[in-house]
C-alpha cells in the first residue's frame, strides 16, 4: 500500500507535482498514467525517498521510506533501466544491490533466472539491449520479494514476448496480494495491464478510477461495425434511434445502441456482420481530451 497525501514538488520555478493525493492498493495492478512531463517519475522518486517533497507526505505500508533499514525487502522499484554501469556484469550489478541489504545466497541467480537473463549474467550490461536492461531492472526490483513494487515505463524497449511476459508478471504479483504501480504514457498499454488507473497531468490528479469505468466513460458507447451491407444496416439502426457515422476502413461508428442490439437487428434481417467492437480510438481520444489541458510538450502544428 502506497499512500500519497497532498504532495507538491517544485524544481526551480516549475511546479512538477501540485497537491497530488492518491493511494495504491495491494492485490491489483495500478496504472500510473499521464503524458510526458506530467510528474510521474518525480512522484516515483519521491516515493523512494530520493527527492524530498516540498509539502505533503508519503507512506509505504504505513512507514516513511527513510525508516526502512533494508528497503529492498519492502519495496522494489525500476526507475530507469538505463541507469546501470555499462562496464559491470548483470550479476555483479545485482550482487552489489543485494549485498547492500544484507542479502546473500541464491536470490541473485533466482531473479536472473526469473527474468530470463541467466545466460548473459556474466556479460557486461553495456552490451545489453534496452529490453534486456528492462529485464535487469525488473530483476533488481524483485530481489527482496517485496510487498510493494513500482515500475516506471517498464515496457519501453521490450519485444512483444517481453511485453506479454511483463504483463503476466505484474498480474501474478498482484494476484499474490502485492501492491503494483506501473507507469506509462500510453493508455492502450495500461488498459491491458492495469485494474485501476491513476491519471495525472501537470502534476495534478485527473482521475483515480477502475480501468473498466475509465474505459466505459471514455468509449462513450461508440461501437465499430464492419459489414458488407453497410447501407442497409445503417438505415435499420437509425430507424431504431441510433446515431451512425462512417468510420475508418469503411466501418460504421454506431452510438446509442448496445452491441447485442446491433447483432440482433442484423440477424433479424439476415445481414452478415464481419466485425464488431467498442471503439478503442475513442478511448485514446477520451484520454487525450482528459489530459489535453495538461500536455507539457507539443510539437508545432499539433492541435491545441
Amino acid at each position, binding site marked *: 500500500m502506497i499512500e500519497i497525501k497532498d504532495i507538491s514538488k517544485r524544481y526551480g520555478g516549475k511546479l512538477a507535482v501540485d497537491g497530488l493525493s492518491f493511494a495504491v492498493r495491494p492485490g491489483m495492478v495500478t496504472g500510473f498514467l499521464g503524458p510526458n512531463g506530467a510528474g510521474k517519475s518525480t512522484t516515483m522518486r519521491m516515493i523512494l525517498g530520493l527527492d524530498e517533497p516540498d509539502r505533503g507526505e508519503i507512506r509505504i505500508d504505513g512507514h516513511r521510506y527513510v525508516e526502512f533499514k533494508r528497503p529492498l525487502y519492502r519495496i522494489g522499484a525500476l526507475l530507469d533501466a538505463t541507469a546501470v554501469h555499462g562496464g559491470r556484469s548483470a550479476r555483479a550489478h545485482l550482487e552489489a*544491490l543485494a549485498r547492500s541489504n544484507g542479502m546473500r545466497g541464491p536470490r541473485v541467480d533466482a531473479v536472473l533466472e526469473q527474468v530470463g537473463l541467466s545466460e548473459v549474467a556474466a556479460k557486461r550490461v553495456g552490451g545489453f539491449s534496452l529490453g534486456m536492461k528492462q529485464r535487469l531492472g525488473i530483476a533488481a526490483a524483485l530481489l527482496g520479494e517485496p510487498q510493494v513494487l513500482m515500475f516506471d515505463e517498464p515496457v519501453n524497449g521490450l519485444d512483444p514476448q517481453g511485453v506479454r511476459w511483463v504483463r503476466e508478471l505484474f498480474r501474478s504479483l498482484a494476484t499474490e496480494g502485492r501492491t503494483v504501480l506501473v507507469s506509462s504514457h500510453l493508455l492502450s498499454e495500461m488498459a491491458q495491464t492495469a485494474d485501476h488507473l491513476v491519471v495525472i497531468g501537470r502534476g495534478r490528479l485527473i482521475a483515480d478510477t477502475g480501468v473498466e469505468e475509465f474505459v466505459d466513460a471514455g468509449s462513450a458507447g461508440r461501437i465499430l461495425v464492419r459489414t458488407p451491407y453497410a447501407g442497409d444496416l445503417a438505415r435499420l439502426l437509425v430507424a431504431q434511434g441510433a446515431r451512425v457515422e462512417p468510420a475508418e476502413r469503411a466501418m460504421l461508428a454506431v452510438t446509442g445502441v448496445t452491441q447485442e442490439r446491433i447483432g440482433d437487428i442484423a440477424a433479424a434481417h439476415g445481414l452478415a456482420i464481419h466485425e464488431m467492437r467498442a471503439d478503442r480510438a475513442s478511448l485514446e481520444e477520451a484520454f487525450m481530451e482528459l489530459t489535453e489541458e495538461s500536455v507539457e510538450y507539443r510539437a508545432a502544428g499539433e492541435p491545441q
Partner: protein
Amino acid sequence: MSTATATEAMGAGSGAGRETVTLTGSNTPLGGPPARFLDLLAAEWIKFRSVRSTYWALLFAAVPSILVGILIAQNVSSNWANLIVHPDFKFDALASSFDGFEFSQLVMGVLGVLVISAEYSSGLIRSTFAATPQRRAVLAAKTVMIGVLALLCGEILSFSVFFPVQAIMHKVGVGVSLGSPGALRAVLIAGFYLAVLALIGLAFGVLLRHTAWAICAVFGLVFILPGVISAFPAPWGDRIGKFLPTDCLGQLISQQPHANDLSRPWSFVMIVAYPVVLLALANYVLRRRDA
C-alpha cells in the same frame, strides 16, 4: 482488442502468470536487523572490483611512477660527476624516489572521483540510495573502501619504488636505506598521500557530481594551484603555498626540512585535513540534496 476481450486477457493473464512467477510472500519486519556497515562495504567492494577501469587505473597508477622514478635515478647517477661540480647543486635522494608519483597521484584522485561520479553519470546512484536511504552510511562505506584500498596500493607502490631507486643512488654513494633518518616516514607518507588524493577525489565527486569537473578540481588543487600561488608576489607565495597539499607532502618526504614550509607535524595535519574537511562538506551536501 475490445473492452470485453481486454478484461478477459487480464483474467487469463493472472492465471497463466502464476506458473512463470514463483515469489513467496516474505516480509521482513521493519525492526529486523538494519543493513550492517560491513554489508555496505562489501557492496561497494563488489562495485569497485567488477569494472575494468579499476584495474586499468591501478596499472596506470603503478607502472609509470615506478618507471619514471627509476629513469630519473639512472639519469642522475650516470651524470653524477657532472652534476656535483655545480656550486648550487642540491639533491635529495630520499624525496627523489617519488619524482614519478605525480602521475599516480592524479590517477588515484580520478579513481576516488569515479567511485561516486560513475554512479551519478549513469543514474545508478538512485538505485544505490533507494536501496540504502542512509546516504551518509553509503558515503562512509565508499570512504573506507577506497581509502583502505588506495592506502594499501599506495604503500605497496611507495615501497616498490623506494628500493630500486635507492639501489641506483647507492652506486654514487648517496642512496638511503629504510633505516636512514626519515626514510621510513617518507616512504609511508608517500603511500599515504595516494589515499589522501583518492579521498579528495571522492569528496569532489560527491560535491560536483560530474566526472570531468571533479577531476578538474583534483587536478587544479594538486597540480595547478601550486604554480599559481608560487607566482604571487613575495612573501605571499610562500605564506599561502605552504598550506597546499603538495608543499606539505614535500616537507614530509624530504631528508632536510624546508625552512619556508610548515613544520612536519603541521604538514601532516594539513594533508589529513584536506580529505576530512572536504568529505565533511560532501556528507553535509549529500544529506540535503535530491538524488
